[in-house]
């Protein structure tokens, strides 16, 4: 038994973040503004003198993006990393790929690492496809000989043969992404670190990328893979790490990890949303909870094509009796917006009390099975389109787990990209040929 190829012990990473206290004050006096600016200037000048970094904002707070994370990965393992936005997944990958330094703890890597945190890093729009292949390859750590050897393979994978000598700024966005992924896909390090890169390109190409990832995974290389796409994680990975607010919650086989991740999402939904740290807006109107209910009252999970009920509890602190404009934007697991619910279309929600519950019912949820997340927006004194004030915005405010139903059975992962996101009510018949001619 050889030693683990990656060992991480007590890893932590802290950032200093600044807050603007200004917008929380109701009235602003010139004296306060001047005072604040003078104080700010004094602090920045002092920081610069001591060689510290400059932070915008009035209060400075230490924020631990990652704390006390320890795990080991053996050679040839494919490990998924899952967690909500801001759980520290990307920070972890950045440390492992040596982009940033840990604040505490240590990492021992016993192999060459290549990281793919973004598709097409360093592509230059003025250069041709051919030049960009060499540029991007060199940036990702390939040698010139290696790139030359794989050149034809890369070009073939990207399907851009005819445009090799065209500057990439003339490429369609699809071609651009294909070329970028193709270069990255032909990396051959001992350890490959991948962040959410499958969410690019058209369905056809995504399928191809998944296939390539599977080849890599089966080729005996060690892979760390971050994704919001649970289907991809469960197909590719044998083991998964669950990160929750910077801490390693679980490290176990993929299905258990995904189940526990979903459970933690459900528990999170019990908490007051207003206590989350990533809220933007004036907060004159706060959402406390957003839950998705099925027809029989089960929380969080709804069957495809069945009734879905989204229940929102809120409180407001403003004194205006105008209506609030509430928007719920639904995104699929690739982060693509698929639908929105907007109170602009109703007149039922005027004169809201200071505290209450709003419900929105869709008689049949037309989404295929999978995981979706909801971003919430509240606008006051006007709607989003008429330039109202943003009172509350929270990304990933709630999750919807859409289950396969009799109407729309689940599709295999490989087909998922082709299935789209819509579950259409469909009636198929054999029409009379004579009837069509008329």
């Amino acid at each position, binding site marked *: 038994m050889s030693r683990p190829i990656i060992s991480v012990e007590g890893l932590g990473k802290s950032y200093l973040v600044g807050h603007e206290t200004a917008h929380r004050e109701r009235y602003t006096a010139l004296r306060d503004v001047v005072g604040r600016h003078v104080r700010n200037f004094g602090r920045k000048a002092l920081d610069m003198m001591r060689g510290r*970094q400059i932070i915008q904002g009035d209060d400075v707070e230490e924020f631990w993006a990652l704390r006390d994370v320890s795990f080991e990965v053996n*050679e040839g393992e494919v490990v998924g990393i899952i967690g909500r936005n801001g759980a520290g997944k990307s920070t972890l990958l950045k440390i492992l790929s040596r982009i*940033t330094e*840990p604040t505490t703890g*240590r990492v021992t890597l016993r192999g060459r690492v290549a990281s793919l*945190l*973004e598709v097409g890093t360093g592509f230059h729009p003025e*250069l041709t496809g051919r030049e960009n292949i060499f540029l991007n390859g060199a*940036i990702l750590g390939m040698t010139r000989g290696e790139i030359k050897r794989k050149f034809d393979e890369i070009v073939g994978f990207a399907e851009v043969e005819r445009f090799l000598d065209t500057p990439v700024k003339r490429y369609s966005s699809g071609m651009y992404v294909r070329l970028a992924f193709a270069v990255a896909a032909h990396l051959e390090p001992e350890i490959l670190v991948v962040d959410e890169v499958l969410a690019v390109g058209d369905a056809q190409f995504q399928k191809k990328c998944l296939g390539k990832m599977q080849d890599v995974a089966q080729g005996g290389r060690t892979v760390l893979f971050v994704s919001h796409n649970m289907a991809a994680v469960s197909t590719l990975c044998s083991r998964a790490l669950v990160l929750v607010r910077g801490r390693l919650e679980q490290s176990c086989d993929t299905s258990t990890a995904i189940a526990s991740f979903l459970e933690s999402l459900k528990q999170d939904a019990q908490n007051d949303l207003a206590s989350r740290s990533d809220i933007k807006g004036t907060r004159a109107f706060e959402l406390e909870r957003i839950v998705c209910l099925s027809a029989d009252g089960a929380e969080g999970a709804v069957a495809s094509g069945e009734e879905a009920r989204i229940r929102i509890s809120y409180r407001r602190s403003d004194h205006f009796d105008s209506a609030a404009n509430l928007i719920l934007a639904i995104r699929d697991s690739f982060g693509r917006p698929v639908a929105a619910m907007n109170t602009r279309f109703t007149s039922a929600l005027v004169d809201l009390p200071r505290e209450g519950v709003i419900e929105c019912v869709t008689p049949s949820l037309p989404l295929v099975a999978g995981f979706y997340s909801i971003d919430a927006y509240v606008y006051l004194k006007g709607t989003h389109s008429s330039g109202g004030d943003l009172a509350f915005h929270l990304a990933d405010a709630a999750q919807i787990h859409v289950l396969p139903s009799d109407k729309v059975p689940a599709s295999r992962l490989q087909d998922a990209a082709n299935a789209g996101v819509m579950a259409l009510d469909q009636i198929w018949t054999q029409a009379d040929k004579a009837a069509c001619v008329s």
Partner: protein
Amino acid sequence: MNAHELVLEPGRSEKNYWRDLWRYRELFQVLARRDVSVRYKQTVIGVAWAVIRPFLTMLVFTVVFGKVAKLPSEGAAPYALMVFAGMLPWTFFSTALSDASNSLVANANLISKVYFPRLIVPTATVVVALVDFLISFAILVLMMAWYRFAPDWKIVFLPLLVLLAFLASLGPSLWITALNVKYRDFRYVIPFIVQLGLYVSPVGFSSSVIPPQWRLLYSLNPVVGVIDGFRWCILGESAMYWPGFAASLSVTAFFLWFGIRQFRKMERSFADLI
């Protein structure tokens, strides 16, 4: 398998940093080539810009300092030739400094997404400035032919002086680049330094017009040594002021050491700051 063992810890300066730098030499080439080939894309006269800018400044300086102020040239060398011999290293220095200081911020997407020794980015920019320098060097050769001015044996030192100009530009560039990532104020300071430096350094005039008691102090400007050296080797007329040259050399060496040290120190936090 343990050949590649790598430990990441806070505050650990990597032992194999210089080896890494060597391993990434191809990236260095690629980045430099990218910058060179992108530099004059979608311009009408292209690379001629590298020639026109110093040439026009030389004309202005020759008229202002040579004809209007009637400052002396060095020996029998035509004034225009003397100005251009100083203009070349100065243009190199100022281009290197201003391009390098923006290089990391301009490549922010690379810094925050991929690892490589960060030293490569500003150094590649200085190399690009060197390419411009070599192109405008052709003008100097043409001018010397025009004035029928033949250099003497000292011209063999030219490659050494080009190297000196490179090192003199690299040191301050690295330092300013690192500072610019942390404090973007330097973005506004650089154009000012470059503008002021043009008049503080002996570009439009010979450094022999500086009063002797101030000459050593004046030579603390590293560019003074480089420009004097260029004139000494190309024009071959004036006697070299060696104490001043030695002072310039030591300041250059100090800045090189200091620049690399500061850069290495701040490098680790670049990805967090950018």
